[in-house]
């Protein structure tokens, strides 16, 4: 039996890697993937907590998050393609016209 804290540690590591990816990378595709990583980090925490507490709600929420993540990925990628067609770049630092 692995300690629940190990799962939570894994979850935190995954989430942290995702955060760093979102904040530090310039490639929009990578950023989207990092977001997925964060979501899955959360999923690990949900499932671990559900299993530890003997409650199915954690698992159900993990599926819920996956569904949302799938939808988000679909919309995000579609937006990305449209953006690439328009700007011919997926470098986030060059996409900065939306400001004062």
């Amino acid at each position: 039996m692995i300690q629940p804290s190990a799962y939570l540690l894994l979850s935190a590591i995954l989430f942290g890697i995702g955060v760093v990816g979102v904040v530090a990378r310039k490639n929009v595709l990578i950023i989207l993937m990092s977001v997925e990583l964060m979501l899955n980090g959360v999923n690990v925490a949900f499932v671990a907590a559900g299993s530890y507490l003997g409650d199915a709600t954690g698992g159900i929420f993990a599926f819920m998050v996956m569904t949302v993540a799938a939808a988000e990925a679909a919309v995000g990628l579609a937006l990305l393609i449209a953006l690439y067609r328009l700007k011919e770049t997926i470098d986030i630092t060059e996409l900065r016209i939306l400001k004062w």
Partner: protein
Amino acid sequence: MVNGILDYLWLVPALPLVGVVVNGLLALFAERPLLLKEAGLPLPGGSHGSSTHGTSVSPSHADPTSHGHGGGSHGHHGTPMYRKLVALIAPGVIGASFVVALLCVLSLAARPAEGRTFVQILFPWIQAGSFLAPVGFQLDPLSSVMALVVTGVGFLIHVYSVGYMSHERAFARYFVYLNLFMFAMLTLVMANNYLLMFVGWEGVGLCSYLLIGFWYEKQSAADAGKKAFVVNRIGDFGFLLAMFLIFWTFGTVSYTEVFAKVPALSNSGVLTTGLATAITLLMFVGATGKSAQIPLYVWLPDAMEGPTPVSALIHAATMVTAGVYMVARSSGLFLLAPDTMMVVAVVGAATAIFSATIGICQTDIKRVLAYSTVSQLGYMFLACGVGAFTAGIFHLMTHAFFKALLFLGSGSVIHALSGEQDMQRMGGLRKYIPITFFTMFIATLAIAGIPGLSGFFSKDEILWQSFSSGHGSPVFWAVAAAAAGITAFYMFRLVFLTFFGESRMDPEVARHVHESPWTMTLPLSILAVLSVIGGWIGIPAVLGGSNHFEHWLAPVFHPAAAATAHGVAAAGAHGAAAGAHHSAVLEIGLMALSVGIALCGIGLAYFLYRVRTGKPEEIARNWPTLYRAVYNKYYIDEFYEWAVVRRIVNGSVWLWEMFDALLVDGIVNGVADLVRAAGDRVRRLQGGVVGGYAFSLLAGAVLLVGYILYRSMIQ
């Protein structure tokens, strides 16, 4: 129906209001489109139906000649239907109002003397806590005199106006204002409480403004209207404060309740002499504004910019006497305040002689009469100030007759001379306009105080009371008698310059001189009769009369005098009481003396303007400073301009710059500047770099979670 005709008392002020509505509709829908078309202006969008009618289907488009012709020939032939209607309705409603008022007064007179106060409450108007101000009318001897004078003289002036204004294009508008004035004036004199009186008070002020500025295209007329309005506001402020004090003291504003409470409250010490003095002084401030007394008289001479019948009705016979009426109405309070009585008498006497001297040098026929009006109003206040309210009201009535006649006569002269008002360009008019001359001459005799005519009885009553009453003194008598002499002088100067001697008219004007139509001469004649016999109801006992007028007003003024007899010495020193202290010989002697002074004035006028016509100019040359001072009205207007108007304007500019521009605008603009500056800083956070946003999101989340953790740890 128990009160008979008195139940219809409300008709007296209501009938003129009907005239206002009907004439107003005619003015709006019949006259205004016509005037706008003549001026070549488009109709405003409001009356869309008639607008298309007026511009596209109008005969002026179909027939170009009719346009120019229609404008010029307005008054001469083909009088529009609506003008005939207005000319019928406007005097008609006033005449009807007069008839109702007369019947009501007759019905009142049939009652015993103590029961001659009829109050008709129509409906509650303002109700707030213990405060109740109903719309109600009161008919008692005092208000019946006022109502009869207002409606009677008003009716004659309305009839006169039909003739005088026949060449006027804004005919209906004029009569709307005039009817509205009658409504307001009747509300003023017949109200049963101070608040409703104030409504009428403000209403007549408004109509005065509208009618002075009737020819608003003329700058001087517009300015004069504004001046009258502003000066009157100063007085109204005093009246308002007086009203607040009355409510504060008595808890009511109804005349009957206030004066019923006066004895009890003054006995119990609530109504101290100081409080009574404050109330009455503030009231008197209102009276000086409305009745053109020193120091607020300056608007009245300028008010002569209005049409002459307006000067006769508003600025001589009725509205300007409202102050006298108010003082007389509040006699119960005034008698409690000897200081105020002194002030009233002094201001009245000073005004009487001061404005009389100005009248000597004026050359504009209406301005002479205006200063004469101010002077005569001074007499009325002098009478009130010495406690002879009856004499004041008596003079108010006779003055309404002869001064209205003088103004209407001067209007007839001006009408005959196609608008000329300068007496230096008149002369010899006696044979051209005999009716006007004759009636005006009677009025001049009356105002000069020639025995037998109305002015003699009322003026002499005032002179006698100012000498003999408890509040009077020989000084008042001397000043008033001197003013009477000056009055006789300048009035005869006016008559001699206008009607006698060589004609000094422009030849062009002289060709068109004509006697006025019957609508103008008939009112003149009736007023001339009244100017003669109007005084006969108040012949003093010493001359064998019985002074019906004093007996009639006694129920109003004598209870007041009796109520205060405990505190104020000799408050009730009216005619009969005074007779006990002074002999009839003295009264007759003073009478003869004042008549002698008046005859001296007439003689001097005859000498200067008939015998030695070069003499006045010589006098003016010999005393240039004095002459210029009097001719320029002692530079009072200039002094006010410098001492008051400039100061207020400068003060307003200072307030505007310091408070409005600096403080208020500063706060508003400062807030805006602050927000802008802050926004300028904050907007730099929105750099457009997604990574930055993500980082701030993260930082926020970390801070939040950290805070929650910190909270849970310290617990």
